[in-house]
């Protein structure tokens, strides 16, 4: 799966994984080191089957910063915006901090348990029966009732059925099919078939934009807020 054996069997966060890669090559954190490990890190990041969603944004950000760094290393003439330079500097700073703390933790481990301090042993107690004056059966029953009343109840999470919404891919396919057979179709007509849910109109619109982007169709809007007419780009022979 991964191009190198990960130290911990569990998923590693991006900074840890990146620092591992650098340390394996016995380098310190620097522009050069980061450029060198970029490819390894990218393969590692793309190698997961179940990518934990929470970490994906972090990974994507670090991947893009590394690519920037590597590009700069390959094309010294490349000029970076101040924001891009800031991102690179920030990544290096965070990695250097992590590097420092890792080194410190190894030192700490050596000292652990070397010279502990001790409390005196518990002295043997000769118990004398010395109850408070107010003990009674009723008191204890009331105490127990109080204890039981504050016990945490298991939360039952409300369950809501997820609504099925048509996917963007399906919408794109649908539009492609209909427009190739009709050569020209208006947006109002197209989205009318899926008008049941408002969200589907939005998805229809996105499908149209995607096909325009791909160069499959051309969209023309006559007047502001007017209907949009979509035509196929392909001048193939119409099929009957």
């Amino acid at each position, binding site marked *: 799966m991964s191009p190198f054996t990960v130290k911990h069997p569990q998923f590693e966060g991006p900074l840890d994984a990146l620092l591992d890669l650098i340390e394996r090559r016995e380098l310190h954190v620097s522009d050069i080191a980061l450029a060198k490990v970029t490819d390894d890190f990218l393969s590692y990041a793309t190698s997961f089957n179940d990518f934990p969603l929470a970490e994906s944004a972090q990974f994507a950000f670090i991947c893009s910063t590394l690519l920037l760094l590597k590009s700069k290393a390959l094309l010294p003439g490349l000029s970076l915006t101040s924001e891009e330079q800031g991102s690179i500097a920030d990544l290096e700073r965070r990695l250097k901090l992590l590097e420092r703390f890792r080194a410190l933790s190894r030192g700490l481990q050596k000292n652990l348990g070397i010279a502990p301090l*001790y409390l*005196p*042993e*518990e*002295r*043997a*107690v000769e*118990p*004398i*029966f*010395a*109850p*408070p*004056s*107010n*003990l*009674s*059966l*009723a*008191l*204890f*029953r009331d*105490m*127990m*009732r*109080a*204890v*039981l009343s504050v*016990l945490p109840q*298991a939360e039952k999470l409300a369950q809501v059925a997820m609504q099925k919404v048509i996917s963007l891919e399906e919408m794109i396919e649908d539009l492609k099919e209909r427009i190739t057979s009709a050569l020209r179709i208006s947006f109002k007509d197209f989205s009318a078939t899926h008008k049941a849910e408002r969200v589907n109109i939005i998805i229809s619109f996105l499908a149209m934009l995607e096909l325009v982007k791909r160069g499959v169709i051309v969209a023309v809007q006559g007047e502001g807020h007017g209907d949009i007419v979509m035509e196929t780009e392909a001048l193939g022979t119409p099929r009957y």
Partner: protein
Amino acid sequence: MKLDAQIEALLFWRSEAMTKRDLSRAFGVNLVAINDALADLRKKLTERGIALVENGNEVALLTSPEASALVEKFRKEEMSAELGRAALETLAIILYKNGATRRELEYVRGVNSTAILRTLLMRGLVSRTADQKDDRVFRYEPTLELFSLLGISRAEELPEFAGIVSELGAFEKETEQITAAEL
């Protein structure tokens, strides 16, 4: 570290008297050396709240004579004070469960019980025995004197015993299942 300081550390940690012979063996020195060190220690502890006390055989670190009235006052207070709500709740759980481990108590109450258990032990309200299943673990049980004070001969005679015990049992079982599922 000098011998008097070493003896001081050992006596403090042991919290009980030791014979001079034991000290001599522990430190691998003869009795003369021990006696000299003890003399040093006694001198250094003058005007402190702790004193080195010895009879022919044994030595111990005890509170100094000047402090005895003070300590007596605290002891009396500890033994006669009313129990706070937290202590009463803990004692109630111990009664209705007819004995519980520290962990079981903290499970139900959700807070640390160490200090409370020490008080209940000292005042003869609960006693401590090793758990049958695991002798590293202690069980705290209501004392017979407590039953006697409350006018009952067994835990089952506590008011609403069956209802409370079953409710408690249901809670413990449910949390056990939830914890097991999370692991």
